């Protein structure tokens, strides 16, 4: 019987851990996967799979870098899905389709979606790596160290890619978006 109590305790902690992870990272991961895939349904599948994989991990090994772990798994899975979805379409041709938001007011949602799509068309003109690190930095607010853990790129490379990506965006962004 003591063993049963131990297992229940363990399961309870596991469920609590997953609940907290869902609470903190569900929406950011969905936003990130949606940005990569331009498809909310596919993004939801990817995020669901990411959390199911989390359930199968030894939490003691993951919890110290949970955020980076989740984004790494989500990113790899999303890129995998993207390639399977359209093998002939290079990543440069990501389509920045508008993604409806059930929780927002129609006007607010349309404005946000329009801005997102407009900026996306310019981000699509960057290199894959530039776009990748810029999304992680400015959409998800990750540090260079966290981006390093997710992409495997060195901090120096990340700094250079963000710097050159911002420079390119300054050149191509229209004044109305810039101001």
């Amino acid at each position, binding site marked *: 019987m003591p063993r049963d109590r131990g*297992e229940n305790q363990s*399961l309870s902690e*596991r469920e609590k*851990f*997953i609940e907290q992870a*869902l609470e903190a990272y*569900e*929406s950011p991961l*969905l*936003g990130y996967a*949606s*940005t990569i895939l331009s498809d909310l349904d596919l993004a*939801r599948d990817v995020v*669901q799979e990411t*959390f*199911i*994989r989390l359930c*199968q991990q030894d939490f003691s*090994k993951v919890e110290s870098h949970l955020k980076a772990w989740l984004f*790494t*798994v989500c990113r*790899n899975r999303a*890129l*995998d899905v993207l*390639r399977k979805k359209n*093998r*002939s379409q*290079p990543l440069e041709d990501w389509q920045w389709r508008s993604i409806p*938001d*059930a*929780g*927002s007011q129609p006007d607010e949602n349309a404005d*946000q*979606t329009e*801005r*997102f799509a407009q*900026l996306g068309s310019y*981000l699509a003109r960057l*290199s*894959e*790596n530039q776009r990748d690190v*810029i999304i992680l*930095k*400015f*959409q998800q607010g990750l*540090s260079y160290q966290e981006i390093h853990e997710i992409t*495997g*790129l*060195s901090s120096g*490379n990340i*700094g250079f890619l*963000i*710097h*050159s990506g911002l*420079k390119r*965006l*300054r050149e191509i*962004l229209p004044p109305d*978006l*810039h101001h």
Partner: protein
Amino acid sequence: MKIHPDDPLITSYVLGELEPAGAKAVALAIDADPLLQQRVAEITGTQRVLTESIRPPTEVLLPHQREKIRRNARKARGPAEMATRRLFDTRPRKALAAAGLAAILVVGGLMILGRSVKSNVPQVHAARDRGASEMSSPVPEAVPVPVPVPSLPAPRLQGYLTAAEVPILELPLAASGASLTAVTDSIMNLGKRPAREVVRLEEMLNHFSLRFGGMTAVARGGLNRWHPDDREDEEPAAVAHAATLSTEMLACPWKPSTTLLLISLRGGPQGDAQVKLAYHADTQNVLRYRLLGFDPCEGRVPGTLPTQLAANGTCLLAIEIEPFRPAGELGVLEWSVDDQVAPAVSLVHRSDAEPSDDARFAALICTFGQWLAGDELEIIESDTLAGLAREIRSDTLAGDRADFLRLIDRSLEF
């Protein structure tokens, strides 16, 4: 401190990514230079546009998806969870159970007749062995055989080399096939994950005979005087096929955004040869790359690299290449045999190309080796490994490859 207005340090400073001492020095430089102040204003403006506009609408998972995650959280538990990832069904098969039952009946009958039970035991073993030889059978019980573990230094996994900084990597050739024996002994006989120092990916690759289906180049030695017109000669000149270089590329299983370059070098029949091989990265298309395995021999360290290729011997190598885009020119392999320059092999990756069976098997070996060595922790998951192995599993798989799948299957228990 003098800083150029186009220095990435300025961006890192604006984004708060510098250490306090570095940030202070950059701040002083900015205070003293109007050009830098203007650049800071520009970067801040672009940062504001991005943070305001790049945010997608807030979304959540659907209720049934959340519930599925919660169900997984409830049911996931150590050993039971790992058992679901096994490649082979470890439950007793019906045929096996029937054979066991038949054997018991035979033994019982013989006992009744007053005969020796011992004479029937081999029949039971034979039935078990037949079952074990099937692909979908339980993992056979291995007989413990002590295998000497090579005395090797602690592993230090190869780091990535940035193509712009290190565009050329000379490749080492020496690799035996010993590591797989030690890995197998640890997993199958000792029942534990092998020590990291015995996991040598290059040796595991070299344990198998693999032929890649991409570009191939042949080097001919100095004795090669053969010509098609000589084919009718009674004593044709010796054909000096010195070495063959074959390559193939496929998406890296644990990181699909990167390309796995597989290289096979085969020695000719004439004798041992000195082969120098180097990867020249295309700096326009390749961000970074790394040679898998070959620890502690870091290719970029100056010194003498092993270059001897035995007659009819094989050496396999794997390089993980991270390109800027999924397909395109990734560089060239340049090589020479006994100081004679051989035809270079251009490396062009087509993302829609179907990999050969041998390339997929090599990718599985790489995944298993890197997983055992603890590389790309949490990226190479046991699920990924099991999935790859399942894809390769077939009834016509060669014996050594089927054994390798059983090895992976058993390793997933740990």
